[in-house]
């Protein structure tokens, strides 16, 4: 039945933008990922769910290049690619928003959005790039565009320091930073975990905007209500292996919870099919 579900999912699914096949990852004696397949298409929100220790974060870090996979193949638009470092990942347009966001609270929104890739003024070629004058205005223009694209309405000024912003605004800025760098795949790790109701709503709106702008979104969460609101498909992991991939419209939160906690039928660890 597991393979049947998968097959149905793939028949109706849009062509994958990023796909991985047969991923294995071991940490010493721990086999964290066993033969995992995963894919996400453009203009789609793919939820990645599983109980604690199911391998969600490990899989995400493999996709982000933070961990090298022991075995497995990576494809972008059906072309095989290598992915073994964070630089490879960002070169392929894969961006990740970690749970801790990694924003510099002492800097303003515009500075955070262009951090590490600050625009510099033309000319000044005799100086090393690090010492050329910043184009602060260009930075603000870009930040404004990025924020407007995601329609973060509550943010008044891109010159506000991040430490003065709410949790939802910070999440939105972290997402805007990931999207701003010509990325096509955006992975979000528990973006609503620490947020209240209104803040969560704001972040979910941003995630929907990402789908409209034709990004491939990987959405990791524990919250079934959020997942059923934004996700198009749901990949369930358990004990480091695939359980199944569901189309959100054809399933229920209860079925997902059962798949997360018990797997399918008596099939225990991983997807042997």
């Amino acid at each position, binding site marked *: 039945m597991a393979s049947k579900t998968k097959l149905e999912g793939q028949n109706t699914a849009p062509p994958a933008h990023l796909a991985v096949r047969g991923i294995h990852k071991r940490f010493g004696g721990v086999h964290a990922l066993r033969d995992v397949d995963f894919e996400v298409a453009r203009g789609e929100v793919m939820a990645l769910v599983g109980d604690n220790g199911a391998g969600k974060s490990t899989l995400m870090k493999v996709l982000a290049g933070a961990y090298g996979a022991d075995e497995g193949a990576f494809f972008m638009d059906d072309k095989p690619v290598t992915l073994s470092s964070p630089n490879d990942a960002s070169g392929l347009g894969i961006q990740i928003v*970690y749970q801790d966001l990694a924003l510099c609270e002492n800097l303003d929104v515009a500075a955070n959005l262009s951090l*590490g890739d600050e625009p510099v003024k033309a000319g000044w070629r005799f100086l090393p790039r690090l010492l*050329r004058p910043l184009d602060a205005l260009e930075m603000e223009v870009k930040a404004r565009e990025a924020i407007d694209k995601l329609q973060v309405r509550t943010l008044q000024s891109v010159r506000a320091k991040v430490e003065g912003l709410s949790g939802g605004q910070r999440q939105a800025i972290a997402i805007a930073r990931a999207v701003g760098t010509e990325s096509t795949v955006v992975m979000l790790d528990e973006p609503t975990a620490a947020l209240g109701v209104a803040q969560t709503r704001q972040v979910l709106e941003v995630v929907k905007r990402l789908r409209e702008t034709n990004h491939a979104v990987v959405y990791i969460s524990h919250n079934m209500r959020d997942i059923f609101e934004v996700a198009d498909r749901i990949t369930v992991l358990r004990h480091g292996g695939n359980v199944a991939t569901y189309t959100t419209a054809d399933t229920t939160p209860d079925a997902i919870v059962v798949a997360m906690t018990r797997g399918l039928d008596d099939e225990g660890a991983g997807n042997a099919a």
Partner: protein
Amino acid sequence: MRRDGKMTFLDRFRAMRETQFGAFVPVLLALGAIWGYFGLALPAYDVLTGEAESFRAIFLSPRNIYNLFMQSAVIATLAVGITIVLLLGEIDLSGAATAGVCAALLGVLVLVGVPGWAACIIVMGVGILMGAFQGLLVAYVGIPSFVVTLAGLLGYQGLMQKILPTGNLNVGDPFVRGIARVLIPDMWGLVLAGVVVVLFALASLRKQAQRRMKGLELDSPLVLWGQVAAFGVIVVAVVLTLNAYRSLPLLLVLLIAITALLGWVVTSTPYGRSLFAVGGNPESARRVGMKTQRIRVSGFAIVGLMAAIGGIFGASRFGSVSYTAFAGGSLLLEAIGAAVIGGTSLFGGRGSVWNAILGALVIGSLGNGLDLTGASAADKLMVSGAILLLAVAIDALSRTNTGGR
């Protein structure tokens, strides 16, 4: 922006400190209070109690202001350097000892006949190496900077004693002495001040025009012109005061020029941005691909360079190099105190090199004022300690995370 409409006094204070020039306000207030106390309140009190026959503002006399600036210049030079490592969230305890080694080396070099300018360049290079060496230990070996630079403090103090077994050496080289002795003629000092103010005003206006063109949020005209006016008044007043006694000394022009260059690098280049990023959130800086270890090393190298320059300034002003004037004296704590009193956070990621100069003036004014009133060394130490504590308390309170609520 605020989570609730109400703003407590602390919130307002924090918000003010976030603005470009608001960060100067606390240290300017402190400076104003100290100058007011020593310059106006104490003489007035003396007149009232009949201790003095007439009102004599010795502290605020051009002669004393001149000396005050010169006394504070070495502290300021070191404080500007230390600000860079404080921005990174590190600390450098070895700055004064580095300055001492560099000054001693300078003295020995000119004694054996090396031309003054060459000796200055050599010791600046040595300062960079001494700083970078400590930076390598911090960044690549992973020893906390407090420990590395404490070891550096001891080691460099010893090194200075090795170079100067007698503990004292006169420096007579005309080039080195000239840095502190050469005065800019009154007229040229005013012209220089005028040019700087006009450039500042033009740059502000140009930026505002560009913001309007690109449709970005504008600074209010009041703030814009207020900044230009305040800047102009301060610059012209300083030059006129110095002219009233002697003239603008080359030493101060060099200090301001170096600080301006460093200030520009810190606020307006990708490198400066990376200093703030590493100090604010090293993990974030690493993830966006900044080479955090190299940035740390470079920060310590800059402290080494500024310490060497401080050593040259000190040797030039005193006309001699002595152990107590640098490594063995209170210079180190005064320099760190100046940076912190200026508003640079010990927690990293917040601060400005300009504030370090104002902080150095605060420290210098305290020492100078207490000397004039005949206070004992014990009084001076206790008052300086209290001021430093106050400055760090303000720093802690103005951090959003640790502030009350």
